[in-house]
């Protein structure tokens, strides 16, 4: 909201400049985000009157104007504006002056004709962004005065952001009231003495929805001067408030709203049939609105209707059928109180954000209708003239709001500082809620314009904010008596993250909502859809972190990053048993060379085994690696024969595999290896339990076996371990060979065993016996032949 300092000072005039006022307001919770000049520097810009206009002899679009600008001598000015003609008044910038954009205006020849200055548009003077030609000033504007003077002089504009609970501050009056409390000064409220009716005409008013409209005031005014224009001072006030003048009647209602916070509406009286009805709309009813749309209404929308049709949306926008326009002479002025609950959300639903709706949603003064009606009538009398009728007032019996008790002790307890009693009384009185003394404090009745005073804490804030939050000291609340549990078995997620970081992974954070199409491709499923996504490709909650990781891979590949190693932790959102499961997972993706380009390692692409090593490292942290089971299984995102499902003691932990080559091709991304694991089981470690380390020497024995390709490493290792017994301390595969000397459907696998006994030195004979046992088992069980 934009507020003019000069306008504000008509209500209250503290001895402080605009910046100081802004600071005080901000620190009282009325945030002033900027203070700017209302007018640009209008150096040597005067009010001029165009006396004559002749076409330029050598240019079609230019005219030679003789302009009176107060110097006593006519100035010859070449002008290209289409709306220039003799008799109009417009701003003239004299030679030597500067436009707000800095360009200097000099005496010059334009197509051979002397020009002593420039006739200006509002746009050139940086007043509005109107490109409608010269800024035409009203006929009574005094020639020869500076434009700054006729526009009301220098002024500052405060841009104010009002929080949604403070509808009462959405006006000059409201801000003035805050300053009254802050500077402890009285307000000067504009004259609102009733204007006597000179005609008897009235419209019957029926409020059929009293829950939505607690007060309604209406008045007919006839015989307006239809040729009246909005005076410059009023136009300028509107401009300084960010409102565009439209029509004198509309401008006056806008002015009153800006000043007093009470929205009003004016109808062309001749278009109202019978009388006014305030009611809920009927389902399917339509209304053509001022801004052109024609929404279909339902019974949640409050409307103003006559006896035949809907005239407008109550408190939001009028209809075009009854709008005031050029030539309107009889008007009906409406000034009502619509309840926030009857207005809230409607503008949003209908896509109509208006100043009136904004104010009604936040709450307008329950007692402000007559004041606004009289203020508007008075301005109309001054500007358009006319014959006012009596004011019709329909009012629900006012329920006296129940007082809120403010306890002295509670005030101090919550603020942490004692506020003297007379300061409390002064502050609340200035805010329009003089407190009544009670046994342990005060009783306070909130005024009709405050909808945010319901409980004691609300009053604590009022006192606190005007007294000054920054007088509250800093105290440390004593330490906690209890200590949070720290289960040692549970791994800190940071360790998983650090492990991947040490293995060259970069953590990423991708959106929780993803592209449905990519998601379907990678999971074969549809995710939980958003009702109002911000973009079509961010419309579903992710079923897997792979969607974001693959997207990130694409993004980085498009930026020439060949080596991408990324991981993410976070929730995935899965439908399970007709419920939404929000599951914490960790997922990773690698592509490109396994190592950054270097001299000491071969430049080779990262593969399945590289990623599996990373996954195993994660499981090793919680001591779960030995219990990991890796089983081949198909997954829509993965290469059908390079995909594995991981299991941990009967629970499925996740997936690991090479991205399906077809998917990579469609997405135009390189081959990548991915994993995704549930976090919860990964974090469940065990408490370490110390065991003695054998003091007897270990013996290393190797065994090379030839087996069918179908025999897996897991089978070999399991058989070897089972047959070797407890003396097998460690068992590893250290070579796999295929090629000359080996049948093409078979492979040679080299096993390395570390044998060690915990109670005695293992003899060579004993070791030989173990190895024979292992070889025999592999031969019988897996069809292995032993290589020498």
């Amino acid at each position, binding site marked *: 909201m934009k507020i003019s300092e000069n306008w504000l000072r008509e209500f209250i005039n503290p001895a402080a400049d605009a910046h100081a006022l802004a600071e005080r307001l901000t620190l009282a919770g009325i945030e002033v985000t900027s203070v700017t000049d209302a007018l640009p520097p209008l150096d040597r810009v005067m009010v001029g009157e165009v006396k004559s206009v002749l076409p330029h002899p050598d240019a079609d679009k230019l005219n030679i104007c003789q302009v009176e600008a107060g110097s006593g001598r006519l100035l010859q000015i070449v002008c290209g504006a289409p709306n220039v003609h003799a008799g109009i008044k417009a701003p003239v910038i004299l030679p030597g002056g500067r436009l707000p954009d800095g360009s200097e205006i000099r005496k010059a020849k334009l197509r051979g004709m002397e020009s002593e200055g420039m006739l200006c548009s509002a746009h050139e003077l940086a007043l509005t962004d109107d490109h409608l030609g010269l800024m035409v000033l009203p006929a009574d504007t005094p020639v020869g005065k500076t434009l700054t003077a006729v526009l009301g002089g220098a002024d500052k504009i405060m841009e104010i952001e009002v929080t949604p*609970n403070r509808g009462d501050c959405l006006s000059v009056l409201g801000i003035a009231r805050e300053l009254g409390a802050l500077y402890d000064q009285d307000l000067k409220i504009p004259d609102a003495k009733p204007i006597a009716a000179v005609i008897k005409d009235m419209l019957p008013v029926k409020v059929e929805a009293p829950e939505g409209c607690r007060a309604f005031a209406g008045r007919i005014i006839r015989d307006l001067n239809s040729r009246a224009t909005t005076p410059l001072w009023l136009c300028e006030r509107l401009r300084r408030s960010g409102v565009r003048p439209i029509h004198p009647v509309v401008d006056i209602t806008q002015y009153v709203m800006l000043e007093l916070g009470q929205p009003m509406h004016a109808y062309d009286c001749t278009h109202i049939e019978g009388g006014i009805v305030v009611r809920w709309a009927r389902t399917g009813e339509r209304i053509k609105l001022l801004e052109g749309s024609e929404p279909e209404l339902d019974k949640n929308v409050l409307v103003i209707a006559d006896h035949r049709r809907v005239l407008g949306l109550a408190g939001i926008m009028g209809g075009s059928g009854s709008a005031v326009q050029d030539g309107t002479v009889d008007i009906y002025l409406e000034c009502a109180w619509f309840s926030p*609950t009857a207005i809230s959300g409607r503008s949003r639903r209908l896509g109509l954000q208006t100043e009136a709706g904004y104010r009604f949603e936040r709450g307008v003064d329950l007692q402000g209708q007559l004041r606004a009606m009289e203020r508007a009538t008075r301005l109309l009398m001054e500007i358009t003239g006319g014959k006012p009728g009596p004011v019709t007032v329909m009012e629900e019996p006012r329920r006296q709001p129940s007082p809120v008790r403010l306890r002295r002790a509670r005030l101090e307890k919550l603020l942490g500082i004692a506020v003297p009693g007379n300061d409390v009384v002064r502050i609340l009185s200035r805010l329009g809620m003089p407190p009544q003394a009670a046994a342990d404090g005060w009783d306070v009745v909130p005024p009709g314009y405050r909808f945010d005073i319901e409980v004691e804490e609300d009053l604590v804030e009022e006192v606190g904010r005007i007294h000054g939050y920054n007088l509250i000291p800093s105290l440390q*609340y004593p330490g906690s008596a209890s200590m949070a549990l720290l289960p040692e078995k549970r791994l800190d997620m940071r360790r998983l993250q650090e492990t991947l970081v040490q293995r060259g992974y*970069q953590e*990423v954070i991708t959106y929780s*909502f993803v592209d449905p199409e990519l998601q379907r491709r990678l999971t074969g499923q549809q995710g939980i859809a*958003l009702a*109002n996504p911000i973009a079509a490709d961010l419309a579903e909650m992710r079923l897997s972190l792979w969607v974001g990781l693959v997207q990130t891979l694409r993004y*980085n590949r498009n930026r020439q990053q060949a080596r991408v190693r990324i991981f993410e932790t976070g929730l995935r959102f899965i439908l399970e048993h007709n419920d939404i499961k929000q599951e914490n997972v960790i997922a990773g993706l690698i592509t490109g060379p396994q190592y950054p380009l270097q001299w000491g390692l071969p430049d080779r692409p990262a593969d399945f085994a590289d990623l599996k090593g990373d996954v195993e490292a994660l499981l090793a942290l919680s001591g779960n690696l030995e219990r990991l089971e890796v089983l081949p299984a198909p997954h829509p995102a993965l290469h059908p024969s390079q995909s594995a499902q991981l299991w941990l003691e009967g629970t499925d932990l996740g997936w690991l595999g090479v991205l399906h080559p077809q998917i990579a091709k469609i997405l135009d991304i390189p081959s990548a290896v991915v994993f995704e694991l549930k976090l919860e089981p990964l974090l469940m470690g065990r408490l370490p339990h110390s065991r003695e380390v054998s003091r007897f020497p270990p013996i290393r024995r190797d065994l090379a076996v030839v087996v069918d390709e179908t025999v897996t490493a897991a089978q070999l290792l399991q058989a070897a371990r089972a047959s070797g017994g407890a003396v097998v301390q460690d068992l590893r595969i250290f070579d796999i060979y295929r090629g000359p000397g080996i049948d093409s459907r078979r492979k040679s696998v080299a096993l390395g065993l570390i044998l060690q006994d915990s109670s005695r030195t293992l003899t060579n004979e004993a070791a030989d016996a173990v190895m024979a046992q292992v070889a025999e088992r592999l031969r019988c069980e897996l069809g292995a032949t032993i290589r020498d």
Partner: protein
Amino acid sequence: MQHLDDLIREAHRRIDTSTTLVALNDVRVHYLGRKGVLTEQLKSLGALPAAERAGAGQYINDAKRLVNEALDRRKQVLEQTELDAKLTAQALDITLPGRGHEPGGLHPVTRLLARVQALFERMGFRMETGPEIEDEFHNFDALNFKLDHPARAAMDTFYLRDWPLLLRTHTSPVQIRAMLAYGAPIRVIAPGRTFRHDSDVTHTPMFHQVEGLLVDEGVSMAHLRGTLSLFLQHFFERDDLQLRFRPSYFPFVEPGAEVDIRCIFCDGGGCRICKQGGWLEVLGCGLVHPNVLRACKINPERYTGWAFGLGVERLGMLRYGISDMRMNFENDIRFLQQFR
């Protein structure tokens, strides 16, 4: 014995001029080997008269000892030389870069969250998390957001299409969950993802918040101020950091405030970052609204508390200079690697 003296002199000369251990060994064999010159001399003692034998024997043995010592000395020298040469030959280019992985890095948001969390854990706060798909009760109703109130509309909420659920617009629902689960007294922080229907340079539809909550007996605005001052001073590592509280409105706190810090870039002199105002907005806070305590079955007459919520990406802007919020989630690896 003239002959022997010459022999010894010659031996020393040959020892000193030997340049390899092999050559030196040849010299040793020549003089001291089984058929060596000095060995032969000893053997020839038998031919001498008995009276001379002792003296000559002594003389030859001394000569042998001297030659032996000279050989040992020379051997040590040559061995050292040989070792030096070998070691020199083993020289590495120690400027070659090391082998293996280069570490990746954590996302800046993770870094910031870890820092905030660490500071609050030192003050005895426990960390809590909550779901990102929330219901109206936890995200709004229990937090004293009235239906159809502009404050509720202002949250720009994402809703699910087929469920009466939404994406949490703040981490505040975790307050509700924690209070319902543990009751009072309580002190928790809750970091996490939050979502609002908004997208431009300073807004992304997803961002991170950290919620803080302390409910106990006799908690006041002064305690809120105290904790936040301490936290912000430690976070920014400036013990002279000035704070200012501005009244503000969040339905779930009353009194409510927004906290500004003295601009850390210009110390309040006015700069581009603080828009010449000298202050930077960092978080919102206040005393927990009695309606919220009541919704969580906590008696507001006995217990009072404070809560705050801070934007993590905002801290990233102030701490690391990430001015375009969208950079956080584009995940350009070259950008992210600055925050290892």
